[in-house]
């Protein structure tokens, strides 16, 4: 630690020298090179320390996943004995995955998760972008009230509404259908506001020329505004997809038919039903997580920016 500050000071001295040299010479805008040199010097110890801390924690963070993967590749009989044997046994086997993939349950879960997540995304993104367009680009009476009403939705945590939503779906007889999972997740206020903010910043000239050509609102929305918004649509669609795919509380209470269960609900039933088959349990958690890992590897940027931009936390 003392070493770090010491080296920081010496190099700081150097960079001060560099600055003096440059201020005598060219203009103030000139010395990027000198500064980089100075920074590299003063920061070397710091960068090394940073690397060490980060890598230690990153490895720590990777251990649970790697442990689950290793266990899923070990036989059930070995994994039942304990941590030591799992670590020592390197006769890797795909037995657990074969069992799960041939049982059919997991395919039902995948189907349920795909159907409900994709339909939710289509409706949620379509409807929220339409409403955002009206709120951003059209002037009409009551706009302010509609806006306030929707803003209020940010205050409402959907988890707290599980009981009334259950009752509502119960009354109309939608329990144990995919619609019970899809419909309540369609009004996503956050997406509406992210869209509205984006639409607010699209220059009006784009629409004006289309209007001169006689295009209606729907045409303008579809062929001008939406294509311009592709990055936001991608980000919001993926964030919504991840959110609906991972939602546990809603499908947990509105789906009781095992054939209709989504992956989170299916996984929630695993622990009890699999008993001591620890490798199978870990394999099922890996299979449940796999689609999202693949999604992350493909859409890294959209996912990260989407979550950061929406400020949406589960």
């Amino acid at each position, binding site marked *: 630690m003392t070493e770090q500050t010491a080296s920081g000071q010496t190099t700081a001295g150097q960079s001060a020298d560099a600055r003096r040299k440059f201020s005598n010479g060219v203009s103030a805008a000139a010395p990027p090179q000198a500064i980089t040199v100075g920074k590299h010097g003063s920061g070397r110890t710091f*960068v090394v320390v940073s690397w060490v801390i980060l890598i230690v924690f990153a490895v720590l963070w990777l251990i649970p996943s790697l442990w689950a993967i290793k266990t899923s590749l070990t036989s059930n009989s070995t994994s039942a004995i304990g941590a030591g044997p799992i670590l020592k046994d390197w006769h890797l086997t795909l037995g657990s995955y074969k069992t799960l993939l041939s049982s059919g349950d997991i395919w039902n879960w995948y189907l349920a998760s795909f159907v409900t997540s994709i339909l939710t995304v289509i409706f949620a993104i379509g409807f929220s972008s339409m409403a955002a367009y009206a709120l951003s680009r*059209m002037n009409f009476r009551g706009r302010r009230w509609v806006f306030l009403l929707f803003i209020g939705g940010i205050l409402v945590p959907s988890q707290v509404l599980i009981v009334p939503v259950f009752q509502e779906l119960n009354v109309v007889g939608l329990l144990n259908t995919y619609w019970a999972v899809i419909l309540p997740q369609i009004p996503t206020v956050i997406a509406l506001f992210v869209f509205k903010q984006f639409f607010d910043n699209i220059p009006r000239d784009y629409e004006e020329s289309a209007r*001169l050509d006689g295009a209606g609102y729907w045409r303008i929305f579809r062929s001008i505004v939406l294509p311009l918004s592709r990055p936001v649509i991608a980000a919001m669609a993926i964030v919504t997809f991840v959110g609906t795919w991972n939602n546990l*509380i809603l499908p947990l209470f509105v789906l009781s038919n095992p054939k209709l269960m989504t992956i989170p609900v299916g996984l929630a039933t695993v622990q009890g039903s699999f008993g001591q088959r620890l490798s199978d349990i870990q394999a099922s958690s890996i299979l449940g997580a796999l689609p999202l890992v693949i999604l992350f590897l493909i859409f890294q940027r959209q996912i990260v920016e989407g979550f950061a931009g929406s400020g949406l936390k589960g």
Partner: protein
Amino acid sequence: MSAQLEASVLGLTPRTDVGRGSRRTRGMTRAAWLFIAPFGIFYILFMIWPVIYMIITSFFNTSLVRKGFGSFAGVANYHEMLTRPDFWSALWHTIQFTIYTTPPLVILAFVFAVLANRVQHGQWFFRLAFFVPFILPSAAIALIWTFIFTPSTGLWNSFQALLGDQNPLPVLGTPSIAMVGIAITTLWWTIGFNFVLYLAGLQDIPRELYEAAAVDGATQWQQIRAITIPLLSRTTTLVLLLQIIASMKIFDQVYLMTGGGPGISTQVLLGLITGTAFTDNRIGAASAASVLLFIVIVIITVARQVITMVQERRAARND
């Protein structure tokens, strides 16, 4: 405003402008409502109506097994909840969980983000390590960590045994530390979100500030203290309040890992609410508890809005 703008762009004479303008406005109003309708209908059905229904049923003895609201109960449901010891213990466990998770989730995320931002290279690796758990289903997370916390044979206890503790306590099976186990799981699962928010906040700090500070001889640590921490204060407020709101809504990890046990040592508010509704079939009482939790979350959210507004105003004044 926009109608005027359009009219002026169209270059119409003032007289036709008036006539066209009003028709245009009417057309626009109709179009606007048509655009809002699909979202609006679902918003009313699944946001507004449930809130109203929740408030109404909280004053009735509504049950899952009978149709209708049931008999009028007045404030009996609220009175019951506010005098039930397990309501207060669920509230306490929720707060306990918030206390356990918030400081490490904010501080570690900050440290990771600042360091990852400094080292420049290999950011994808840290995003993979820290952020990927956040997008995985809570159910998969719970399976992984319940396995790690398995008494005696699990990774956690094996590690403790390796360190010399020959009879380590089963983490999820011991009332006093079960919530710590859930908090560790949550820390591992959700830090990536805060990490990414901080990384985004760091992008907004102009590089020139650091360069100027370096020129003035500031060490890396001084730069972090004098530039990074103050300029990230708005991100920190955001992270902090989002974290508190998210922690108040904790349900998944508890339901999946301990089911509220051992005993009721990890029972949280949403667990109490769903238990009252779906196990005891008492919708009215569950609604009263939901309304109480709802009020707490609304207060925190409003506080967040106020703090953000104050910060923005202060920032505007400084500019």
